[in-house]
């Protein structure tokens, strides 16, 4: 039997009607269309589905959505604000902390949960913490570099991202004007 509840995701409240056996992962992806959270192993081992609930890192593939009513849920979609990336997101680009990117939202959420609680972890603490998030592409070195860059303030403040320009240099109508010879 479906029941109605309110989920607070990334600071926004969503009223959802769901079966009580629905997992948070399914509700985020299928009901709310927040597909940044990924399914990897379905048994809470790989960390691809990591989200943060009331400050704690959890596997959304093992969490019943119904139990999340009234709690603050953070997903990868909530990190970038007004088109500006979270420092961890920047670091993962700058230091190459991903290849295929399927585990990346989970990696970034896991790192965020750690740094929210302990902004200055040692490299050993980061390794231990991040070992719950599997990656098959990178060998983890660049993920570690990315997280440590944030810990040590080594991200480039002037780093420019490969992001589309949002204002065209050329006015659209100008496109059709003939180009004058320069001679």
């Amino acid at each position, binding site marked *: 039997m479906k029941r109605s509840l309110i989920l607070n995701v990334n600071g926004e409240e969503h009223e959802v009607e769901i079966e009580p056996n629905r997992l948070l992962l399914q509700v985020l*992806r299928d009901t709310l269309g927040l*597909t*940044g*959270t*990924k*399914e*990897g*192993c*379905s*048994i809470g*081992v*790989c960390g*691809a589905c990591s989200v943060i609930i009331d400050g704690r890192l959890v596997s959304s593939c093992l969490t019943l959505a119904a139990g999340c009513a009234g709690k603050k849920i953070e*997903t*990868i979609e909530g*990190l*970038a604000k007004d088109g500006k*990336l979270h420092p961890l*997101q920047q670091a*993962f*680009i*700058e230091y*190459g902390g*991903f*290849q*295929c*990117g*399927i*585990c*990346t939202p989970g990696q*970034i959420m896991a790192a965020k949960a750690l740094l929210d609680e302990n902004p200055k972890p040692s490299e050993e603490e980061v*390794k*231990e913490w*991040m*070992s*719950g*998030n*599997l*990656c*098959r*592409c*990178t*060998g*983890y*070195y*660049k993920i*570690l570099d990315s997280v440590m860059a944030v810990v040590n303030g080594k991200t480039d403040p002037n780093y420019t*991202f*490969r*992001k589309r320009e949002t204002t*065209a*240099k*050329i006015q659209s109508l100008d*496109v059709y*004007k*003939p*180009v004058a*010879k*320069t*001679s």
Partner: protein
Amino acid sequence: MAKTEKYSVVGQRVQRVEGFDKVTGESKFIADIQLPGTLIGRVLRSPYPHARIHRIDTSKAAKLSGVRAVVTAEDTIKRPWGAFFADQYILSVGKTRYVGEEVAAVAAIDPDIAEEAIDLIEVDWEPLPGVFDAEEAMKDGAPLVHEDKPNNIAMQMDLERGNIAQAFAESDVIVEDTFTSMPQWHCSIETIGSVAEYSTSGKYTIYMNTQTLFNARYRIATALGVPESNVRIIQSAVGGGFGGKSCDDNNALVAAVLAKKAGKPVKLINSREEEFLAGCRPRVFMKINVRLGFKKNGRIRAKHIKVIADNGAYSAKAPAITGVAAMRHDTCYKYTDVKTEALLVYTNKIPTGAFRGFGNPSAEWAVEQAIDLGAHELGIDPIEIARINAAETGYVSPHGNRVTSCELKQCLDMAERMIEWKAKRAAKRPNTGLGLACTVHVSGKRHFGDYDGSSATIKINEDGKALILSGEGECGQGVHTAMCQIAAEELGVAIEDVEISRADTDLTTFCLGAFASRLTYVSGNAVKNAATNVKEQLFEQAAEMLEANPQDLMSRDGKIFVQGAEGKSLTVSDVARARLFRHNGAPIVGSGSFDADSVLPDSTRFGNESGAYNYGVQAAEVHVDPDTGQVKILNFVIASDCGTVIYPLGAEGQVEGGLAQGIGYALTEGLQIDEGKPINPNFSDYRIPSMRDMPPLQHAFADSYEPTGPFGAKGLGELNMDPTAAVINNAIFEAVGVRVKTLPITPEKILRALKEKPREK
């Protein structure tokens, strides 16, 4: 020599072109693609390793409310298909040959209903005796996996170059041993999946996370019995490939059959368990006997290798993989006389196939240990044995592989320096040892007919940005970034001004896809040629505008000008617009092709399989706890020769990721199969390395230039998966004097070997 300083984009530390989408979670992987009205597919799989199917009753399932289609082999044309041998069906015809084989499937409005419907399908099974071991399977009277394959032999090869008997007779020292490798799963964090739709006009549109779109289209068209043009494959973002997503499995075909019958799009995504049972085709497991003859001075005089490869129930790419295991390594050292015998044998287990390394990890696990045995027997430092025998530029292997660039000796020097080989060996500590191995890989492989090429199209948009249309297989490795760099370098524009499409068989030209470490080399050359073509068009137009000769023009930083007169320049946008918006106007669009200068191996397997060969050396320092058998890798170093490094962040990632898979292969990974039934098909029992399992690593690239590569580049992707298991085992031998001969090298096996050690004396 790789002089990347002279390039403005190639070799620069650029960011990944699709990086923004990856870190925000906006990349659309296969599970994220949602078409209106999409049904959910589920598959009924064989619970038996070998069974006859007398009858399938789908009536109860079809009647369940919410079910839109139930399909069996009767809904297909029952035409067998496969990469090299047509031996598998979309859905079982008459019998099943391994646990997990697709028998029937349903499409329903939600997953719960689809799963309930699967339970309602009734199958009248007759379990048959199975074969689970390659050597048992070859015996007379063993059950046959395929009735038309006597003794279950799928493929056999036996060839000799030179005079092997004489070469062994002339050897001063002969070593011989047998090494067994294990199946290894790709374990991409994203499983295989597809979203298929069928239009009444007869067209299949299939979204797939495949790394080889056009090969997928060909195989899907064959199995469905339609022309290629009736099938459109659109690539989603791919969450890791490693060879596993090269369409040797039935996922997309089952989705297509369901979509046609249901008249609605069908999404079929493998669960993690299904991925292990019947998704990506795991590494072919092999038993390899190696016999090497050496001269006293350390030169290898003779090599005889015997490979018995377990094919599983269907062949996929295993025939080519077995050939690579038997022959590829002969391009690593300067061999003269070699003999190779290989048997590929059907069993009632999961079909095996392509996984990063393609036979090479199994071969290097065996051969690089045999070399180490020889070094110990001769009393020569293993690194010197490697130096004495290392291939060099100009080497032609006994099988015809022509080496146009090779910095293996430089890699040996680099690895030696990084790990402090001499000093550490001189100051040997108890239970600690150093090991190394050399490796070779290809940059493309000529085996899908007489073609190992690529093609690309580049168009210039009105705003001056270039868009590459490529049908190749970006599967997470980052090749799109390398392709954008190559195009930017050739066009003389900034990397930010080049974009690239995802592959789509209706929109992009024919490309073979991601395998054999081919893309940077093969598709890089095609993209470079396309960019040259575009540049010619731009210069022709610009010459008219600048009243100059096209030959006198050059482009830099997005500006086109007469050499020496940079002050008067045009932007790419100015030129593209001028070419378009006028009488007889046309957009600037160019295409380029490339086919490697390799030679299709003949009936005796003599040829030149690739356009370029990449080399490397890995070395490790390990400590073994003699009380627990635990192996701790203290240091790991890698030197790689991939020609010019185009995309440093990506190239480093390939090295590091290859090592992680190599460490898993060496120490923890291996699917346990009991009487044909996998018993650990999940991530908690099949353990891939995590962050804390990775050792301290130093790695570097050789100063190298491949004359046939784009800006001197060649392949890299598989190289550093290949030798790792041998490196670790050679170091373990140096540390504690025992050698485990079956993968994975577990603490239990080491302890057993240590216990048996005194008795050997």
